[in-house]
Every structure is written in C-alpha cells, then in structure tokens.
C-alpha cells in the first residue's frame, strides 16, 4: 500500500494532516495487520498479568516459596492447570507472578540502557571530533564482546540475582542505543531545518534538545519495544543457566532450568514457562514491528 507515487502521496499527506488522522492511521495500521494485533494483545496480556498477578493467582501462598512436598510434580489437572513443581508449588501461580518480574526486568533493562546510550549517542553524533571518537570506540568495544558470554561472566562474578543480571545486561545493551542515536543524530544534523535553526542563532544544546532528539525518537521507540522482548529473553537465558533470580522468586528462565532436570517425564514443568517467555517476547517483537509501521514516515504515504 505504500506504492502510491510519491508525488501523489505527498499531495494526500499535505491535505489530511492532523493528530486525529495520525491516530486513526495508527489504529488502522495496527488493525490491518494480524501480526500487530497479536502483538498488542500479547503485550496487553503480559502487562495485565504483571499488574494483577498477585491478586488473580490460584495459590498466592506459593509465590513466596512454600514447600508442599506432598504435591510435588503433579501433572496438569483442574486444581493445577499447569501442574506443580518440584516442591509442590502451582506452576501457573508462579508463572503469573513471574510475569511481573520479567516485565519489570525487561522494561528496566531497556530503559536503563536507553538512558545511558541515547544521550551518549546524540552527543557523539552531534559533537564530532575526539569526543565522538572516544565514545564510539568504547561502544565498539562493548559491541564486539559476545553479549551473553559477557553477561554470564559478569553475573558469575557478581553472584546470581536479578539485580546483578540486570546490571550485566544493561552493560551489554547500552551500546546499541549509542549506535542508533548517533547515526540518527548524524543524519538529522544534516537536515536543512537544523541549518535553519543555526541560522536563527540556536545554541548547540537547543538544537540537540529541540530538534535532534525529538526527530530521533521514533526508531528509538521501535527499538525499545523490541528490546523489552529481547531483554526478557536474555534474563530468562541467564536464569536458565542458573544465574538469574534467587529462589524463591519465580522466574521463567530459572523454572525451565530446574525443570530441565525433570524432563522428559515431567514435561509440563519446562513447557509452560517456556511458552510464556515465547509469547511475551513474540508480543513485544510484533508490537515493535507494528510500531515501526506506524512511526515510519514512509507508511504515512498511504
């Protein structure tokens, strides 16, 4: 639908502007795409679970690590839809409460990484010279490190725990934001409207804050949406290796890690937490894809 000739399309956009249209367009683009809709639904679901988790779980007392060895490793049933784990806790309960942690961690890592990376990137992109060189070299260094290996080493060194896992992942995550915002800033600073602002006598900071940053924000939002999913996955990966949340905190990756020892007979223990990781990462990725469609100026042509 983006194949309308540019001349014709420019024509349309000109006439039909306005915030209302943009919202309608966004809704239309999302609604049009099954994938984006799915993403939205999944993300909404995860967010819902995270918000309501402790109040809707069937066995709230299982959250804090009760030991009911009499009920251990029960297959899925009406009482325990997803079965029970190795100490007799309801897996559904722990998965639901785990959503809160996963989401928090995903969002936390992403925002922290962006908070470090974006200012650095914009600075590098607009400053130039030795400052830029230093920032980018440093970024390159972190980018060339195998991320998961580095994170594992770090968590192993600092000791397992969700806090340390987050620190490790933030450390391997921020360079991506430097790269993205730097290049975006590089592109934007060549735009004539930046030159226009300079002609108006705007200071460097003003140009950064008022022109560069707002115009660089769209791809950042898309990246962040996708990164939340990837961060959830990364934390789960650390959890799987045994470097994630501390017991009794319910964490999806750690659950699979433990469940692995109970395969194949107690398959439900590994299958359900994995399914939730998959669905939430899928959700954020699809949503990111959808957001790109919305935020990409090219899609406005239609």
């Amino acid at each position: 639908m983006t194949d309308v000739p540019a001349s014709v399309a420019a024509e349309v956009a000109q006439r039909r502007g306005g915030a209302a249209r943009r919202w309608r367009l966004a809704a239309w683009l999302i609604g049009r795409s099954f994938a984006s809709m799915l993403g939205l639904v999944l993300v909404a679901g995860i967010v819902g679970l995270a918000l309501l988790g402790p109040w809707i779980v069937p066995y709230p007392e299982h959250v804090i690590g009760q030991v009911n060895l009499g009920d251990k490793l029960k297959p899925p049933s009406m009482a325990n839809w997803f079965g029970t784990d190795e100490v007799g806790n309801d897996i559904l309960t722990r998965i639901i409460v785990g959503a809160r942690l996963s989401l928090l961690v995903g969002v936390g890592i992403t925002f922290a990484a962006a908070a470090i990376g974006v200012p650095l990137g914009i600075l590098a992109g607009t400053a130039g010279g030795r400052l830029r060189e230093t920032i980018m070299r440093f970024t390159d260094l972190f980018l060339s490190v195998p991320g998961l290996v580095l994170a594992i080493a770090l968590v192993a060194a600092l000791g397992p725990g969700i806090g340390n896992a987050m620190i490790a992942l933030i450390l391997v995550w921020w360079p991506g934001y430097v790269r993205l915002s730097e290049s975006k800033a590089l592109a934007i600073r060549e735009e004539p409207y930046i030159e226009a602002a300079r002609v108006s006598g705007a200071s460097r900071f003003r140009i950064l804050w008022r022109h560069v940053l707002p115009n660089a924000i769209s791809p950042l939002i898309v990246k962040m949406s996708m990164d939340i999913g990837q961060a959830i996955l990364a934390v789960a990966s650390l959890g799987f290796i045994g470097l994630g949340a501390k017991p009794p905190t319910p964490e999806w990756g750690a659950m699979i890690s433990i469940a692995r020892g109970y395969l194949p007979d107690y398959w439900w223990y590994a299958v359900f937490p994995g399914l939730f990781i998959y669905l939430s990462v899928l959700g954020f990725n699809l949503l990111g894809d959808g957001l790109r469609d919305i935020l990409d100026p090219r899609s406005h042509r239609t």
Partner: protein
Amino acid sequence: MTNRVNRRHFLQGAAALGAAGTFAPFSSVAFERDGNRKILVFTGNQAVPVLDPHWRYDWSTRMIQQSVYDGLLKYVGTPPKIIPWLAEKYEMSPDGKTYTFTLVGNAKFHNGDPVDAEAVRYSFERALKMNAGVAWMLKAFLKPENIVAVDARTVKFTLDRPYAPFITYVPWWYIVNPKQVKANEVDGDLGKKWMTEHEAGSGPFKLRRFDATSLIHMDTVPDYWNGWPMGEKNRLSGFIYRIIRESAPRKAALQRREVDVMAGVTPDDFQQMEKVPGVKMVNFPGFTSFGIKFNCQVGPTADVNVRKAIAYAFDYDAVLAIHNGMAELMTSPFPTPITGHVAVPDMPRRDMAKAKEYLKKSKYPDGGFELEYVHVQGLEDPRRIGLSLLDALRQLDIKVNIVAQPWPTMTARAGKAETAPAMMSVYVTPVGTDPDTVAYQYHRNSWGLYYGVSHYENPAVWQLIADARGETDTAKRMAMYAEIQKALVADQPEIFCMMANRIWGMRDYVRDFAYSPVRSTSEIDPYPLWIEA
C-alpha cells in the same frame, strides 16, 4: 579392536538420512561389543580434566584413577573394609610411627615394568612434592625422605609422630611407574603435564582414549596381575565413561541402552526409572553428610540459642521428602559408617515449641532478622533444602536469603568469619573411615578452610580432637570421639542434616555391582563389573 561391530553408526546414518520408517533405531541397540567381548558404558555428569593421581581427585577422576592405577591397599564393600592390594601385608611399629609394607611380587605396570618398592617410594614422594590432590592427608606427618625402599618388595614409612588414620588414607595413594613419569618430565615438573592425559599405572584397565570432557575409554588388561573376579570368559573388553551433563539425556541414554550404568539419578528420577523395563535402580545408604554450617562468630548465629532454635525449626522430614525417602537423617555429627560413630540421644528434630523456646533465650527473642543461606551454584538439592529452610524459619520470623555461589567464591568467603555466610550448605565426604577425618573439621586448624566455615570455637573440643588423632589405643580413642560427637551436638555449629542415599541406574544385565560408601558420591569401582547376556 578392528573388528568392532559398527552397528550404531549404521543405524544413526540411516536415521540421519531421514528414513521416516526407522523408528527409534537406538532402542534396538544392546550393549556394545568389541569382538566377542563386551564393553560396559557408564555415564555421569562430571568431566575428568586431569588424570594425574597425585594432582587432583574428585569422584569421576578417582574412578578412572582407581581403574588404571593400583594402591597399596584398597577399600571394598560396605561397611568399607581395607584389603591388601599391591601390598600383600603391612605392619605398624608399636609406637605407631613406622609402617612397613610388603609388596606382592607379581604386579606389573602396563608397559611391563614390575611394580617394586622404588615405584612405591617414588609415588609417595611425588605426591608429597606436588603438594596437591591427596598430599594434604599425610603431609603434616610424613616427609619424603622418611619413605625408604628397603628392598624390591619392602617399603618403610616413618611418620613424624603417631597418626592413627594413616592406614585409612593409604588406599588413595596410587602407585605410578617412575620410569615412565621420569621419561616424560618437562622442566622438572614431575611429569605433571604428561600425566594430565596419560597414565603410568598397573591397574586393571589401561587408557585407550582420553577426552577430558566427553569420553574416556579404557581397555581391560587381559593378564592383570590380580586376575579378574568374573573369570576370563566374562571379562569385559573395556569400560567407557561417557560424560553427559544433563540428566534428561542421561536417562534417555540408559533407557535406550546407549549406556549400561548411569550415575547422578535424582530421587525423583528414581521412581520414574524404576518402571522402565530392563532397568534396575539401586540405592545404598550414603556416606556423604549434608550439613548446614552456621557462622559461629559473627551475626545472630554466633548465639548458640539461635543455632539451636534453627536446628529445631528445621524440617527434617522435608529433607527426607525431597529425597523421596532415600536419605537417612544424621544421628550424630559423624556419618554412620565412620568408625566410632555413636547415635547422640538428643539430636534435634523438628519441634517448633523447642525452637521458639531457644529463640526466646537468645538475644533475638522474636526473630526479625535475615540470614544468608549459601549453596553451590547449580546444585539442586541444597537449593530445595534452602527452600524448605526458608519455609520453616518463616515461623520464627527469620528470613532466609538463598544465595547460589560458585565454589571459589564460597571458599573465599568461608576463609574469614567476617565474610562467612550465616549458613552455608556443605557436603562432606570423608575420604576414609577414620573418625578424625570428620572430627578435624571442627578443629581450630580448619578455620580458613571451607569446612571450617563455622569458625567453631570450643578449646576443649579442639584439645580432644588433637589428642584423639595421636592416640594409638583404639578403645580410648573411640571414647574420645563419642565425647566429641556429643559436644558438637550441644554446641550445634551446624545442622547435622542427613546422608542422601547413593543412587545408580543400570541395565539388568549388569553383574557384580559392588558398592562401597567410602567412595565419593557417584564413584563406582569398574573392576568387578561384567555383563551377562
């Protein structure tokens, strides 16, 4: 060796070709053959990075060391007995300082060299000089120059002072061929580098293939000097140790008869596996004690009443439940098979009333503090026990922070009372049956080592421990240990928890599986094993 049946290759090839009709080709496979002899395949999760018997040991390493090397003596059976091996007999001088070993004359190294007194002397000297692995057992009592090869078949050891446990350690000191070692020495490294992946032993097996992290393949020595108990006809062709880290594939491998014996079965697996036809699950009372060591110097646990309270609040039944009943609660600080073990009458068992009572007596009558519980990263049982501890102490309003740490971090923390965690879960496998092995962890000299993490302080007990190891009168000695056991329970430097049963799974055609608790957790002795089918 060349006429091995390569049936598996063929079948796997077929599977890889995507022959959809070839359902489960692996299940049709029986034990491996080598010519008309059979190969026994054993699987466990732990690698064997270094084969050198004087450098290091752990269960998997020692299992291979035990197979390719011989010791002067050997542990067998349960309760463990020490039987003569390379030494046909030994004598102790009355002052308890001199031991004279007489070697069997017919033992030969794999390259044909005879196992003589010089080899024994060299081996002990090498171990002491390397000051690694087993060296700690005798280092404080035996100087290399005090080992003398009197003649070809006689070796004399002179200890600096009497040391009662001496004989119980000797089986772990393997004899290496000095000629081979010396021939492969580089820069005076005592052959360390070469010995990492090669053997110079006289044991029943010789090394065929050594792949530290995936597979070790040994062939039986046909004319082993000590013969083969199952008879030449049934003698195996060889023994393969296959390292499979994950338990699920390990189980699958046993089910599909890819392996014949597997170690590292969890109690939960046990029940599932028992139902598999053709699989035999065995479990034996263990020797490895699991304890939760308190920090007796710093923090709330420095207060003996707090320790007592926790010991009484602890849910011992949960521990048994975690092991599906395949564990035995400690009845004393010493594991049952230890010589001199006595059941201490008032071992704590779960009793919340008593727990609260003790807590009331402490400086923290209402709880309200948090304790760190540290276990080795990746170990499942201590984690679950931690969970049950957390659940149990909730009733005393004591919070538990379960922390998994890598081993070196734990040992580093254990080194000082200031950094030692409030509770540290520790498995201790005594290397011998002598009570000193267990008791000495509570001595002042053990402070700074991981098993001294409690920093337990009781000079009277320390004195008893020190005296007991030099005491040559067995009766007197045992009385001292009985007293030590009681005192330890009274001071409660740790929750003396349980001994988990040792579990193996095997195909039902495996014969003469010999258990001896003195071996480490999953370690087996491949020597008597054979396959009947």
